[in-house]
């Protein structure tokens, strides 16, 4: 395929409105293959809404209307024939973990099973690998059959990370994944992300600007539904970014 050269995701003039209120005002950017792409920005700037446009989980909001195009591997996500497969290819970790009311094992095995994987051994291996990648395996390996919702907040969040990895996505979207996770574990997961980025593309929305700095090749600064600045992370975090507001935000003197 021609499109498979560089760009995994190409967003062009994307607008999103909830009923009549537009919250994303025509933004365009692209994400390269196997890059870690960070999105930073203050609250309400539309970061979560943007992610939900990528894998069409925005469909769950009945009054949301989206215009413009989002291309994933050259295919318009809104024209895709199989939205379920699309969602498996673009995995999502939500900021508030929602453990499915199933056992820990079944939580992780959920997506593979939906995709038709039923071989017990294969599933066992996959579940273990995903839980290890999410830095959760050691804590839960002895109680895989207890309820996922009975884990602590941070553990549940890591469980959702394991779950998002379980369907082996091409793109992994992480929305403030570390808000309930302690710094040490966060570092472990960040290492895993770096490792993963050799094979998959990662879109990382984060409130921890330093996390973007540590991980991302490029960083996008969003504000009020628009892109203020998009560039190489070193530049965005330097003393002379292209936009003054970027400097203020990154240095915590925004407002």
């Amino acid at each position, binding site marked *: 395929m021609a499109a498979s050269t560089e760009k995994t995701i190409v967003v062009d003039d994307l607008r999103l409105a909830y009923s009549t209120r537009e919250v994303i005002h025509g933004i365009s950017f692209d994400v390269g293959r196997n890059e870690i792409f960070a999105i930073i920005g203050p609250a309400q700037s539309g970061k979560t809404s943007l992610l939900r446009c990528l894998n069409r989980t925005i469909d769950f909001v009945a009054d949301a209307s989206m215009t413009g195009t989002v291309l994933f591997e050259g295919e318009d996500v809104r024209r895709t024939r199989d939205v379920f497969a699309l969602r498996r290819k673009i995995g999502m970790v939500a900021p508030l973990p*929602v453990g499915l*009311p199933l056992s820990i094992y079944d939580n992780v095995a959920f*997506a593979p099973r939906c995709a038709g994987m039923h071989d017990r051994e294969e599933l066992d291996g996959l579940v273990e690998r995903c839980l290890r990648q999410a830095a959760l395996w050691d804590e839960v390996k002895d109680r895989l059959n207890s309820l996922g919702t009975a884990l602590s907040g941070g553990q549940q969040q890591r469980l959702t990370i394991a779950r*998002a990895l379980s369907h082996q996505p091409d793109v992994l979207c992480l929305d403030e994944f570390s808000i309930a996770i302690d710094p040490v574990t966060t570092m472990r997961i960040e290492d895993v992300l770096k490792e993963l980025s050799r094979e998959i593309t990662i879109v990382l929305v984060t409130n921890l600007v330093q996390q973007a700095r540590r991980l991302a090749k490029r960083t996008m600064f969003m504000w009020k539904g628009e892109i203020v600045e998009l560039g190489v992370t070193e530049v965005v975090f330097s003393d002379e970014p292209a936009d003054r507001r970027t400097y203020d935000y990154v240095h915590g003197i925004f407002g």
Partner: protein
Amino acid sequence: MTAIPASGERVRTRLPGRRPLTILGERALEILIRLSGFSAIFFVLAIFFFVFREAAPVLFTSEFDPKEFLFSTQWYPTSERNVRYGTWALTFGSVAVTALAMVIAVPFGLGAAIYISEFSGKKQKEILKIVIELLAAIPSVVWGFIGLTVMSKLIVTLTGAPVGVNLLNGGIILALMSIPIIVSIGEDALKAVPDSYREAAEALGATKLQMIRRVLLPAARNGLLAAVLLGVGRAVGETMAVLMATGHAVQIPHGPLDSVRTLTANIAAELGEAAAGSPHYRVLFLTGVLLFCITFAVNLTADMAIRGLRRK
């Protein structure tokens, strides 16, 4: 940012203390609530006691044999020479009609509940719910009437059975009566499952049917089980409709086209003609106790099943 006082001084507001009268009022309310809670236990015990008191004397007479009562199919309460009080055929009738009703009502009822909660549009949902509530409001004697006339003719023409009032007829009528309960309680149970579960499942690439099967139904299973058991309760206890629709013949049925009689219908039909205080009268009350025990056993099983599921 101006409202924050300089460090050191702390703003303190004194909360007014609670007045004695308020405290007394709260106590009284608490006691009242506790009483209404316990009154439920009281009423159950009282009802059981009175029914049992009417029945008890016959237990100690020579013509009564507990084994015959439970396991004999001979029900001749008014025989001159040889009175026999065997309720096995009646118990069997009750169980058979209820089981048949549930075989029909559970798939339809739960299916309808899933459709209403997950697939129907807003307007359609409103309409369906209203219609189902209407169905629940039809008096049981009207159902019996339908069984006796419409359904019975239908059964005779379709199956060629000699009589149309039989096990099948009663089962269908009871199913129709239990479905509204199963649907509305089942729908409540599904509605109680948070939307975030549905979205999380679908965000993982599950189709709607996969989401329903793997997430929704397990999450709502206690409520759905309760819905089914309320349906069972309704079917076991129903009297008028089964009296009219089942044919009222005391026998163990050999197929769905045989007539049967249920415990409830038997009591309703015979209590009026049994002289108060006679053995027949007392045995009918004992039949009531038996019915009570059956429903109690159903509820207890349900309770344990739910608890077992929860532990899993």
